[in-house]
């Protein structure tokens, strides 16, 4: 399972970088969305996939026995998703505003501030 997920994550990173290298700013933002998802999935897989073993202490016991899923990466992903969501909300507004002001969605024509 972990091997399959590794390929999926690799594919997501590839796709996101490909999209970010396109000229259109809409595709750029799509690339960023995929990128944040790829990173989240990476955290999820790297910490180890454990099926059907929630980290709950059984009734009457003092501590967890046996292997259980690590809840921390999921908390990390949750935080990262929230952050990515707010950042992407900003990015969507930004590209819309940039399209209005510059009048194009072509990154090649947004070079006024570069040189």
């Amino acid at each position, binding site marked *: 399972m972990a091997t399959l997920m590794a390929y999926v994550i690799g594919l997501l990173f590839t796709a996101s970088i490909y999209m970010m290298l396109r000229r259109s700013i809409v595709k*750029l933002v799509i690339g960023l969305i995929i990128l944040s998802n790829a*990173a989240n999935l990476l955290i999820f897989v790297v*910490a180890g996939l454990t099926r059907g073993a929630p980290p709950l202490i059984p009734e009457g016991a003092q501590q967890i026995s046996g292997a259980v899923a690590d809840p921390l990466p999921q908390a990390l992903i949750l935080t990262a998703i929230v952050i990515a969501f707010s*950042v992407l909300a900003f990015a969507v507004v*930004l590209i819309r505003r*940039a399209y209005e*002001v510059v009048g194009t969605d072509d990154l090649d024509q947004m070079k006024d501030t570069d040189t």
Partner: protein
Amino acid sequence: MNLAPVLPILIPLCAGALSLACWRSIRLQRLIAVIATGLLLAVSIWLLMLTMEHGFLVVEMGSWPAPFSIVFVADVLSAIMIVLTGLIGLAIAIYSLASIPNGHQRFGYFPLMHLLLAGVGGAFLTGDIFNLFVWFEVMLLASFALLTLGGERAQMEGAIKYVTLNLFSSAMFLSAVGLLYGMVGTLNMADIAQKVNSVEDPGMVTVVSMMFMISFGIKAAAFPLFFWLPASYHTPQVAVSALFAGLLTKVGVYALYRVFTLIFTQEVGYTHTILLWAATLTMITGVLGAAAQFEFRRILSFHIISQIGYMILGLALFTPLALIGGVFYIMHHIIVKTNLFLVSGITYRLLGSYELKDLGGVYRQRPYLALLFLIPALSLAGIPPLSGFFAKFIVVRASLEASEHLVAGVALLVGLLTLYSMIKIWAEVFWKKLPEHVTDDSRLNGEVKDKGSWALYVPVVGLAVCTLIIGLYGQPIYILAETAADQLMNPQLYIEAVLGGQSQ
């Protein structure tokens, strides 16, 4: 429990919330901005004194014991950075009173400024690597909004590059944190530092360290990942530019200092050699880029990059003296660079342009302003007895002692080219006659009185005095840098302070 390490985050957060509550009253927001940043500066100086006395201050959130809770750790380096944050925050808050247009103030400029300061403070103080990511994002979101406030074309174009590169760097950082967690199973930086040496596959640790280097390298604007900076820093309001120039890239530098002294010290020969070359090339490209520019703020932006090279050089050499030099350089640079941006804002106000060809004749009308420019400019170039001289002197001497003669030579040459750029600005803006195509110089010659412009001069004078103090009275500052470097060279102290149950 001593809450001192959390206060520099809480104060701007509360001030931000309070300013939001006073959304309709700009006057109240302005008042809160000055009081809160002044309070921040006072608290941060107190924090620095505490850390000089006790070494480390650790606060565990929710009183959970250390590796399980999120900790906030103040060592001398963090405290120094916090003091600088407070100083720059206060200077920018005062400067903003006069320089930020009312429309921007009405659309939440001050709350965003507080939020940015909170993010910067959090990044400096946290002892948890994932928490560092969160504070980075807090800082970035505030900076995105500040950068685009006003919505002009140049701002949009600059913001797209700024946002993209910074988000890429964040994703890289997040992936690296995930991989590191997969290897050591903890997020507490002290705990990571302890466990990272016993990882099965040390090669993977180096790979992850490179991901951290790239991610922080983007944020610090190091070679070859700096190009978002000169594309965006000259586009917003000048107070925003100055705030970014002073603090944002330095957060990246601080993060590099933190992880490459505390966590990733297994393969110093490999990682720090890469840092050394990155630092050298950063210095050269930055200064050459500046030489080719003829816009006030763009020249200064490129100089941020070249100066970042010196700071990373201090880390890359990884000797006690080099780290002292690096820390000293950060202190000097933040003050001086912010001040130069503030001066560029004043000349813009007088003549309405940042292009060197549209500026001129300032020396004749305002000799004191020319002097105020000259102090930070010469300090940046490293002329004794100003602060930049000692900063450069320590770094160059450290590289000579480490037998890196080529790097030392480059550092000196870059200093010379910096002087060239500063002289270019001096000659064009201050010395040459006002160009004939500039017809409106009523503000410059004083026909139109500029109300409230005292708020522009107070921070400039204050920061210039700080530069002079660091230069003329350098011994206490050197001792600060020495203590900070000493703590960085002995990560064991940090680990013991966080995990050893010595918290208060």
